[in-house]
C-alpha cells in the first residue's frame, strides 16, 4: 500500500509515491509553462494541470510497480498566490492568474497596509489572492457566473472530489485570513469586497477533503472513493518534506532566491514587517522572509567574473580571507528584503581597494547573502520564534564554503540537505496522514530519512564575522538615504 503526493509546480506537475514506511519509491513529472499575455501578467491554464494528472500518476505507479488499488490516499500541494474563478459546476472560467502576476496594483491602492500586517501577518502586495479576486471581480466578462474562487491546490482538490476546501496554510497567504483567529476575517473580506460564500471552506492540511468522484477517477486513473487530503502550498510542503516540522530549526532555502523561515507554536506578527506569518501544517505557524536574490546573485557575479560554474565560484571564494579584507556586498540586486524591505534598494560592493582580487568579490557575495540571512534570524529570535540549528536546503547548499560561512557567521550548527525539491514528498506525507498510515504531520515529517551533513561553526572565526557583519549593517544604513532619494 502507498500514499500519493502531487505537486503543481509552475514549470511541471510532479508525483511522488511513498510506501507505508514513508520511503520514497517513485517520482514522475510532466513539464508545461506559464504565459505572459501583458507586461506584468502571468497566467497558466488549469487544463495543463488536469491533463498532466493521469500520465504523471500512471508513470509513477508504473515505476513503483503499483496499481491504483494500492493508493490509500492522495494529497495535492503546489504553487501559492494563484487565483482560478470557477462556475457552479466547478469549471474554470479563466486561466489561472499565477503567483508572479502583478496586475492588481489598483486593487490594493486603498487598502490599509497596517490592517493586512496586523490581521494577516502579511505585507500588502498585488501577488496575493485577494488582490487577484478583486481584479477579476472588476474585469471578468462573466462575473455573475463566478461561484467560487480557488487557488491552484484547492481547484485541483475540487476537480477530484467536488468539495471546495482550502487549508489554513493556503488561506493564510490570501490577505483574507486572520492568522491569530484562524479563519476568514470579515473586515478583510469587506475591504476587498469579497463574499465569504464564494470562498472555499477551511480545514486542516492532512484532513480528508473528500473522496475521488467518477470524474476525478477519469482525470487521475485512481479508484473512485480514494480519500483526498486538503493539501497546502509548496512553500510549506517543501520544508515539511525536508523534515521541518517542529519549532527550533531555521529553514534556509538556497535557490535563485533565498528564503529564511522558522516555525512557532503561536501566531506572532512582526510589527516591523521583516518577516511574514503563515499558518503551517500541524497547527503551527511559519514565519519567514520571502527572500532576496541569492543564488541568483552568485550567477550574476559568475557571469561578471567569467566563472564557469557554481563549483568554481565557491573554490575561488575560498581563497579569499573571511571578512574579505573589508569588502562588503549588499545583496539587494532586485531590492532589499533584509535587514529592511526597501523595494528601491540596489546591490553594492563597498570598500573596494586595489588589493581586492576577483576572489574577494566572489567571497563578498557569499558573505553578504549570509549576513542578510542573519538579519532575518536575529529578527525571528527577537520576536520569540525558536531558532536553533540551521537547515540549509536547495541547490546552493551544495557549496561547502557557503554552508561554512553561514554556520560561522551565525555561530550556529547547520544541517545541510542538498536535495531541495521535496514538495511532492511533503504532499505524500499529508496523504499518509489522511490515510492513517501516520499519526500526524509531525510524526510523518520526522519519519522521513534525510542524508544530512552537519557543519559545525568554527568558534575562532566568530569575531571576524561579527566585525564584518557590523560593517555590513553600518554600510546598509549609510546607503539607505541614497535609495529613498532616487525613489
Amino acid at each position, binding site marked *: 500500500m502507498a500514499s500519493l503526493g502531487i505537486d503543481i509546480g509552475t514549470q511541471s506537475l510532479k508525483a511522488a509515491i511513498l510506501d507505508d514506511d514513508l520511503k520514497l519509491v517513485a517520482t514522475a513529472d510532466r513539464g508545461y509553462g506559464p504565459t505572459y499575455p501583458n507586461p506584468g501578467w502571468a497566467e497558466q491554464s488549469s487544463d495543463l494541470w488536469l491533463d498532466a494528472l493521469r500520465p504523471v500518476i500512471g508513470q509513477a505507479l508504473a515505476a513503483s510497480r503499483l496499481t491504483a488499488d494500492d493508493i490509500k490516499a492522495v494529497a495535492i500541494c503546489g504553487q501559492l498566490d494563484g487565483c482560478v474563478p470557477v462556475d457552479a459546476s466547478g469549471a474554470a472560467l479563466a486561466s489561472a492568474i499565477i503567483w508572479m502576476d502583478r496586475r492588481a496594483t489598483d486593487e490594493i491602492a486603498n487598502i490599509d497596509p*497596517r490592517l493586512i500586517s496586523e490581521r494577516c501577518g502579511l505585507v500588502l502586495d498585488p501577488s496575493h489572492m485577494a488582490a487577484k479576486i478583486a481584479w477579476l471581480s472588476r474585469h471578468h466578462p462573466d462575473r455573475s457566473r463566478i461561484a467560487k474562487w480557488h487557488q491552484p491546490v484547492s481547484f485541483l482538490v475540487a476537480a477530484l472530489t467536488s468539495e471546495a476546501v482550502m487549508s489554513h496554510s493556503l488561506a493564510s497567504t490570501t490577505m483574507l485570513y486572520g492568522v*491569530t483567529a484562524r479563519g476568514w476575517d470579515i473586515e478583510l473580506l469587506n475591504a476587498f469586497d469579497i463574499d465569504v460564500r464564494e470562498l472555499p471552506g477551511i480545514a486542516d492540511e492532512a484532513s480528508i477533503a473528500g473522496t475521488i468522484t467518477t470524474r476525478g477517477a477519469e482525470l487521475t486513473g485512481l479508484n473512485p472513493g480514494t480519500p483526498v487530503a486538503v493539501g497546502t502550498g509548496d512553500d510549506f510542503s517543501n520544508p515539511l518534506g525536508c523534515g521541518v516540522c517542529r*519549532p527550533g530549526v531555521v529553514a534556509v532555502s538556497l535557490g535563485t532566491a533565498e528564503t529564511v523561515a522558522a516555525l512557532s*507554536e*503561536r*501566531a506572532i506578527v512582526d510589527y516591523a514587517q521583516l518577516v511574514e506569518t503563515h499558518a503551517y501544517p500541524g497547527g503551527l505557524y511559519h514565519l519567514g522572509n520571502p527572500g532576496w536574490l541569492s543564488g541568483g546573485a552568485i550567477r550574476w557575479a559568475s557571469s561578471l567574473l567569467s566563472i564557469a560554474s557554481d563549483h568554481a565560484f565557491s573554490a575561488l571564494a575560498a581563497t579569499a580571507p573571511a571578512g574579505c579584507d573589508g569588502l562588503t556586498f549588499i545583496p539587494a540586486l532586485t531590492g532589499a528584503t533584509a535587514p529592511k524591505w526597501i523595494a528601491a534598494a540596489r546591490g553594492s560592493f563597498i570598500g573596494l581597494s586595489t588589493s581586492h582580487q576577483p576572489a574577494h568579490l566572489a567571497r563578498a557575495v557569499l558573505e553578504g547573502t549570509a549576513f542578510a540571512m542573519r538579519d532575518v534570524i536575529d529578527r525571528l529570535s*527577537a*520576536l*520569540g520564534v*525558536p531558532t536553533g540549528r540551521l537547515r540549509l536546503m536547495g541547490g546552493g547548499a551544495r557549496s561547502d564554503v557557503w554552508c561554512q560561512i553561514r554556520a560561522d557567521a551565525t555561530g550556529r550548527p547547520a544541517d545541510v540537505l542538498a536535495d531541495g525539491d521535496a514538495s511532492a514528498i511533503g504532499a505524500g506525507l499529508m496523504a499518509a496522514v489522511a490515510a492513517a498510515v501516520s499519526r500526524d504531520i509531525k510524526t510523518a515529517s520526522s519519519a522521513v530519512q534525510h542524508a544530512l551533513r552537519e557543519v559545525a561553526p568554527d568558534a575562532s572565526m566568530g569575531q571576524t564575522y561579527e566585525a564584518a557583519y557590523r560593517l555590513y549593517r553600518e554600510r546598509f544604513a549609510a546607503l539607505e538615504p541614497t535609495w529613498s532619494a532616487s525613489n
Partner: protein
Amino acid sequence: MQFDILIIGGGINGAGIARDAAGRGASVLLLEQGDLAGATSSASSKLIHGGLRYLEHYKFGLVREALAEREVLWRIAPHLVSPLRFVMPHRRGMRPKWMLRTGLFLYDTLAPRSVLEGARRLDLRSAPEGADLMESYTTGFAYSDCAVDDSRLTVLNARDAADRGADIRTRSRVVAITRHASHWAVRYRTVRGGEHEVEARVLVNAAGPWAGKVASLALGAMQPAIRLVRGSHLIVGRRLPHGAAYTLQNADGRIMFAIPYGGDFTLLGTTDQDHPGDPSSPAMTDAERDYILASANAYLREKLTTDDIVHAYAGVRALYNDGASAAKDATREYVLSLNAAAAPILSIYGGKITTYRKLAEVTMAKLAPHLPTLHTRNWTADAALPGGDFPMQGRDDLVHSLAARYPALEPALLTRLAAAYGTQTAAILGSARTVSHLGRHFGAGLYEAELRYLMDREWAMTVDDVLWRRSKLGLRVSDAEAEAISDFMDAQSSDHRLAAE
C-alpha cells in the same frame, strides 16, 4: 526516555532555566509540586529594580547587573513590565539628602543607557506627588524603576519553554531521588495519586524554600546553609491618584514601598522576618500588618486602617545564609552550588525576580561541561516572551489596535488583557464580534474564552491558579463567582479525563 535536564521547582528560577535550556536544544522536564509561581514567585513586591537600597551595602555589582537587566526584561516582556515613577520623600533624621542625591545619581549612571526618565529632586509642596503626603514632607527625590507581573512572568517563561519543546508538569511532587553515576532517577506523585519515575542526566534544584529538602533527598543528610525569610504585603483599596509609587524610609532604616496596583489598589510592603517553620502557606502576622500600616501612616495624609485592607499575602524567600545578623542584610545574590561527584546536581539558593534571567544563563554556563551538545550562545536577552513581540513602549498602540479590531469589547477588558497576554490577546479573543462570542461571563471581565485559554495553554488547574497567579482577578470577584469558576473548571477537566480515557 532520558531527559537532559530535570528541573525541580516551577518558580521564576525553574521556569527561567527551563526556557533557557530548551532554547539551547536540551530536552527538559520541569516538575512543580503545586502551581507555577505557587509560592515565593507570586508573593514578591512585583518590582524589577536596580535595588537602590543595595547601594548602601556597596553592592555596586549587584546594582549594575540589576539595572541593565531591568531594560532587558522590559524589552522581552513589554506587556508584563511597566515603567513606574518612584517618589522618595525626605525627612530630617533620615538618610541625608546628599546621600540620596548621590545614591540616585549613581543609580542613573550605573545603568547603561535608559529610556527611563532620570532621577531628579521634587518640591513636594507643589508637585502632585506631594498631595497624598503629610505637609511636613517638603522635599523628595523622584527616580524610575519598573513594575512586573511576577507570576505571569513565571508562567510565560514556562510557556515559552514548552513552545521550545520542554515538558512542564505541575501538581507533580518529587518523592524520591536516586543518584547514579551518569544519571538521576526521580519519582514523583501527581495530584491524583499516581506515581511516575523519570530519568535525567542533570538535576537542577530550583525548589526555593524547599531547596534544602530537595538537596537532602538527592544528596542525603548534607544540609545546605539556607535561611528562610518571610516578606509580607498588604493590598489596600485606595489609589495613589498621581500614578507614582512611594519609596518610604522607615524609622528602623528599612525601606517600604507603596505601589499603584491593578488600577484601583495600592500595594504596601514588604517585611523581612525570619521564618523558621514550614515554608508552605506562610501567613502575615498581626505585628507585620501593624508595622506596614504604621510605616505608611508615618507619611500619608489620610491614615490607613485595617478596614482599608482588601488582601494580604506573604512569601518565603530562601536566602543563602551568609551569617548576616539581621534578615534585611542577608544577601540577595544567588548562590549556585554544583555537585558533580556522580551525576551532576545544581542547587540554587536565593535570587530575585529581577535577576532570574541572568541566573538561568549562569546556570547553563555551569552545566555546559556536563551537557556538551547544547548551544553555548546566550539568547534569552534578545527573544520576546510569548505575547511580548511588540515594541517596549507600544502597549498603548497594542490596546488601540485591539480596540479597532474588537469594537464591541470594553476598553477596560482589552487594557487588562493586553497587559497580561500582549499580542496573544488575539489568540484568546479570536474572531469575536460581540461579547457573547467570548462565552460565559464569570464576573469582573473574566470570560470563558480566557478561562479556556488559561487551562489549555497556561496549566491553570484550580480557581486560585486563575484568580491569583494567571491574573489578579481574585481582588475583584465575589466568593460565589469564584465558586462558579471552580465548578466550570472541574467540569472541563473531568471532560478532558473522559476524553483521554
